[in-house]
């Protein structure tokens, strides 16, 4: 088992558990306040982790800017999804977003990072997209 796969799979499992917790709390709190709690809670965790590990190293300004942009991208991603949910059912929007995200992100990797396209990768992507569609419709 390759190490990147172990990390991605473990991250996927923990994210799945987090998503389940979100599902439990969502009826009792607002979308944006819940998101704030999620990000702010994560922010506190990362500070504790950095303090314990003493792992901070010097960063380039470009990397700081990119990392800050990531915060805006993820917030806007969720924000637009909530706007879509105001106009259509989650059973319609979630599969489109889930499958679209897999395919679009992979395309970015193939086009801009020159990652290889293999038959197994395409098959895996199609099956993963189908899995998300069936689980979210």
């Amino acid at each position, binding site marked *: 088992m390759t190490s990147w*796969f172990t990390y991605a799979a473990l991250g996927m499992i923990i*994210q799945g558990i*987090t998503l389940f917790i979100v599902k439990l709390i969502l009826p009792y709190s*607002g979308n944006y306040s819940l998101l704030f709690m999620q990000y702010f*809670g*994560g922010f506190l*965790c*990362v500070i504790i982790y950095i303090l314990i590990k003493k792992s901070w190293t010097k960063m380039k300004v470009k990397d700081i800017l990119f990392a800050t942009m990531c*915060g805006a991208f993820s917030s806007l991603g969720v924000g637009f999804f909530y706007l879509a949910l105001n106009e259509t059912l989650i059973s319609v929007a979630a599969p489109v977003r889930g499958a679209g995200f897999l395919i679009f992100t992979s395309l970015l990797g193939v086009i801009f990072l020159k990652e290889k396209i293999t038959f197994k990768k395409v098959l*895996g992507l199609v099956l993963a997209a189908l899995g998300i569609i069936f689980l979210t419709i």
Partner: protein
Amino acid sequence: MWQLYVGLSILFFSLNDFTVKNIKKAKPEQILFFQFLSASVLTFIATIFFNQVLKINFFHIFLGIGYFLSLMLFYLALKIGELSKAAPIFGLNVIIAAILGLIFLAEPFTIKTIAGLAFGTLGMYFLGGKK
């Protein structure tokens, strides 16, 4: 109009992963520090703008820890793996949420659920292969 919103949502989520993959020198925790900081500010503004109440309960603690750990592991995977493989695997987290829903919330086990779990698991198998 919802199609445009979903399209923009896909675009921004994909840009997030693509940008992280392009940050070469920083450690995952450093990326998360700035990402969580800016996202906290933006979502706090949205919370005020949409007049939502901030209430903290026991589950919120797990939410923060879970989000931090999952993204930390995902960014480690992005550092050494391909974006076009690691991102789809991470995106399959709905499988875990679906299984937990079946076990703890007694959600109905339908043909669609079985098909979704089977396709998702097979997809992960093919994406996780060495070649």
